[in-house]
């Protein structure tokens, strides 16, 4: 398989990034990515994933557009009250002819998951489903205009091991787009160039500064075991 001429032109600027290339771009193009939470917080990540060349986005969000979503990049005033996944899809699809954006088909098996869930319980559940399916996933923990991004390649310490011990952070504030974009950076690398990310890691973003540390498995966590077959 080779990228067609129009696709080469489209992604020319990232096809020349050392460590990236045609094979990496094709992996992105072939990927089905489930995004849990298609709201104002994840909107910057959704745009970045579509533009970077993810082939298929599955938006998993049963809610309606609320006033808070207006702080994102996707929801015009008239969209408030409408179906969130549909509104996000309407804004995302015109960005790229090379991506299909759809509501998450129940039971669909993605190749990677971005978890930007509105509650800790939902984040845990979505991350656990991804771990059991042995697919790479990235979890976003919002804390004001910062927070953390946790990258979980297959086999790495799970999100339950790596999540914030402090519990829920502050509600999202203006500027959270940077955190969402950082999550997109991690997800794109996990899908396109997994060798780059290697092990699991947790990246904190606090007042515009990042710090990273490898994730560590908690003693006795079930993620140490090989997943049950069948």
């Amino acid at each position, binding site marked *: 398989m080779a990228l067609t001429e129009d696709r080469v032109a489209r992604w020319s600027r*990232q096809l020349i990034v*050392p460590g990236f290339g045609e094979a990496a771009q094709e992996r992105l193009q072939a990927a089905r990515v489930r995004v849990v939470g298609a709201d104002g917080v994840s909107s910057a990540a959704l745009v970045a994933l579509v533009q970077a*060349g993810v082939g298929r986005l599955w938006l998993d969000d049963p809610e309606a557009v609320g006033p808070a979503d207006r702080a994102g990049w*996707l929801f015009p005033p008239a969209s408030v009250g409408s179906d969130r996944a549909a509104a996000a899809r309407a804004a995302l699809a015109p960005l790229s002819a090379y991506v299909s954006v759809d509501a998450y088909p129940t039971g669909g098996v993605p190749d990677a998951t971005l978890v930007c869930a509105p509650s800790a319980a939902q984040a845990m559940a979505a991350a656990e489903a991804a771990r059991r399916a042995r697919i790479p996933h990235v979890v976003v923990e919002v804390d004001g205009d910062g927070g953390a991004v946790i990258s979980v390649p297959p086999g790495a310490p799970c999100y339950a091991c790596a999540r914030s011990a402090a519990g829920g952070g502050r509600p999202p504030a203006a500027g959270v*787009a940077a955190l969402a974009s950082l999550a997109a950076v991690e997800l794109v690398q996990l899908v396109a160039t997994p060798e780059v990310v290697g092990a699991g890691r947790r990246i904190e973003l606090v007042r515009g500064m*990042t710090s990273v540390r490898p994730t560590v498995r908690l003693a006795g966590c079930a993620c140490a075991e090989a997943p049950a077959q069948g």
Partner: protein
Amino acid sequence: MPLSAKSALVIGAGGLGGPALLTLAAAGVGRLVLVENDAVDTSNLNRQPLFKEADVGERKARVAAARLAALFPSVVVEPRDERFDAGNAVELIRGVDVVLDGSDNFATKFLASDAALRAGRPLVHGGVLRTTAQLLTISPAGLGGCLRCLFEAPPPPGSVPSCADAGILGPVASFAGGLMAAEALRLLAGERGAYEGRLFTYEARTARGRLVLVRKRQGCAACAGTQPLGGTASASACEVTAGRSGELA
């Protein structure tokens, strides 16, 4: 003063300026001036969030302003489809509270740094090269240095850099633009900037952030107010303007 009474100038509406403009508008900054004199190219669409497939060939300033107005009708957006140059730089900057530089070449970046000092406004400088994002805030009142304290001068036009320097992993630009906007919001709120006098770089492969102190360099003409505006460099044939420590939008 509320954010709705504040204003920002964003140089470039592309990979850095686009995310920055969207974030500032979403935050409720009252007036956004954007300077951009390019047209949308298909190679922009891996990273420039204000533009869609159907916009290829259209003027970026017009498309960007229309997109921002549709999403955030309460924000006043002023598109300026012109070059940011020594003739208009100081005047444009004097009209706003903060400047965000999302330009894609060294000449403009040095000009923005010089002109912001001249006009007495804080400048958030952003850059992205391959998988690295770069931020620096230049504050006229602060102790931190400017772009010329860091590099002295743009690289000469003849020093054609490697073409690989034009590479940008799309989402890294979005990250850098988002950080620029968050920094500008801190400055507009009267807080100290996170990158004042500190060059922050983030390398996406290793996920490592790095801080380098940037002090005022003794004898820096720009800080002393004696520097003629802008550098002598012009963009090379492939728009690539990165030197050893380059940055691109």
